[in-house]
């Protein structure tokens, strides 16, 4: 089953937490693979385990059982330092709350991943400037987050995610804090990035958003309940919520 073109290979992945005496299974044996160049939505209601899955996929959290292979690395076997390096090289994060450093300029925010990669200052500046231009913020490099609109902030965050040329863009509810028009801009930007060849995993609770993606994986109670074209998975989810 392993395919040379697979970027992500998740097999029987479980993650449980100890809550007092009770053990909570946030993920209960999840398996799927994502090929390079895919745009996949991970959709589910709150408590479905999608946040936990996003943390594991982002190498921020480790599974309690099962295996996770990202770009050829077996993540569950890596040390904390090695996972930090893997995040730095292979993953670009886009968060719902943007997670920009408020004191730093847009340019300095975008430079961050390159700092931890040890890229020299001059090259760093240049690449950060290019990344900001790609997301249409070439004129806003000196602005601080407080001087930018929500959509602009999310564009800075996307530039920061792209600047290190990672193999995976991992977006967690990227439109959750934006009005619908701005959210639409951001989704269009993702669509363009997908066309340019980026692999994108988008975590969301909105079936409407999942419907825009070529592929969606639906989670419920820590298990994969649907995996197929985005529009079908979204339609199924809508039917189920209407049915109950």
């Amino acid at each position, binding site marked *: 089953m392993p395919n040379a073109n697979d970027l992500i290979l998740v097999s029987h992945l479980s993650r449980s937490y100890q809550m007092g005496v009770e053990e909570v299974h946030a993920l209960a044996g999840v398996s799927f693979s994502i090929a390079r160049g895919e745009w996949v939505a991970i959709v589910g209601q709150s408590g479905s385990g999608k946040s936990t899955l996003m*943390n594991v996929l*982002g190498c*921020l*959290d480790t599974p309690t059982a099962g295996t996770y292979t990202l770009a050829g690395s077996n993540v569950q076997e890596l040390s*904390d*330092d090695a996972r*930090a*390096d893997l*995040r*730095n*090289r292979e993953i670009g*994060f886009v*968060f719902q709350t943007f*997670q*920009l*450093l408020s*004191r*730093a300029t847009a340019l300095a925010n975008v430079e*961050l*991943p390159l*700092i*931890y*990669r*040890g890229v*020299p200052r001059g090259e760093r500046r240049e690449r950060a400037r290019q990344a900001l231009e790609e997301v249409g913020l070439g004129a806003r490099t000196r602005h601080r987050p407080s001087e930018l609109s929500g959509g602009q902030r999310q564009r800075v965050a996307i530039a*920061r995610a792209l600047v290190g040329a990672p193999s995976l863009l991992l977006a967690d509810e990227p439109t959750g804090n934006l009005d619908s028009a701005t959210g639409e801009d951001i989704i269009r930007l993702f669509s363009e990035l997908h066309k340019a060849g980026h692999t994108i995993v988008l975590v969301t609770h909105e079936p409407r958003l999942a419907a825009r993606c070529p592929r969606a994986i639906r989670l419920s109670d820590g298990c994969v309940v649907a995996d197929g074209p985005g529009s079908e998975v979204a339609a199924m989810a809508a039917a189920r919520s209407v049915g109950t």
Partner: protein
Amino acid sequence: MSAGARLASEIVENVGIALDGLATHRLRTFLTTLGMAIGVMTVIAIIAIIQGLNKSFEAQVSTFGAHTLYVDKWKWMTLSDEWWQMRNRKRIGKPELDAIVNESKLATAVAPTSRAMATVSFRDRTLSDVRVEGTSEQYPLTAGNTADRGRFLVGGDVEAARSVAVLGFEVADKLFADAGGAHAAVGSTVLIGSRPFAVVGVMARRGRMLGMSMDSNVLIPWSSFGRLFGARRSITIAVAAEPGQLEALEDELTGILRRVRAVPPDKRDDFTLNRQDQLLKIYNQLTGALYGVAVGVGLITLIVGGIGIMNIMLVSVRERTREIGVRRALGARRRTILMQFMIEAAIVAVVGGALGTLAGLVVAQIVALLSPLTAAVTPSAIGLGLGFSAVVGLVFGSWPAWQAAKLDPVEALRYE
């Protein structure tokens, strides 16, 4: 990119990040730095004053003559249990002096000294409790000090027991305050007790040692002293040697004195050979504990400054939890986060330390101006101040930095 180059660039980046963080909270940074500065200032001021005291004591002690042994019944700066033992010793007098003069091959000068307290007066001015010392013309060779006005005693004064006196600078200055000061003393006649003495000279000024004036004495011929105060007093014999010969002289004098005083071979010496470095040793013993306490107080202040740093760093870590989460998500290792906060603490500590060192030196100078204490500024004190503060910064910064480094990135990103 090599690990070393990556570490170097991380340090450079972290210094920038730390400075940025400090600049954002100016008041907080200032207060923390102030706490540190006060601690270092205290330590530096105390050390500077202690070193100044030690230095001035050493300088004063050196006026005793570095190559001179003082044969005495009493050991200098003795402790009480030895006092009774020495009290019962036979006095040191003419036989010992003659034996040393005749037999010692290493002695370059020998000067006996007897001491008594007496009243000295000139016209209507009277000084009580002046140290009157009976000695010989060889005194300047053993003491490293002589008359700089008029002349010192000569051999003839001692042989003929002349009533002549050389005044210590302070005695001359006070007695002749109305008559034109110390210059006017030579050629005048003063009364020691009720006996008139012609002033032939005034000694060069020596200053103070441990707050006591070294210039409030009167020197007269040893023979005249015997007539005035009686010849039965125990004397001190100052014996000078060539540089480097002090140990050999000590052995030689011990042999001569044991024989003259008929000390049986199985008994200990019943005399003491005092020397100036012994003063230093005892001084250090007596003052060491006191200095320890003073430095301890300074260190406690420094620790309080360090706790201030720790406190503020813990607040800073709490406030920047989300930032730490973001940095971890973007690829910062635990070590990098640890370093970031350690560098921030170290910057506060070292800047505080530098300001404190400066302030400490100023305080030491002020103390030196306003009190009889002196202050010595040594490079080692400055190095110590900066070194201490860096250590305090790293020690007290390490706990908050570790708190930051061990944060779980998922939790940190969620922190409100």
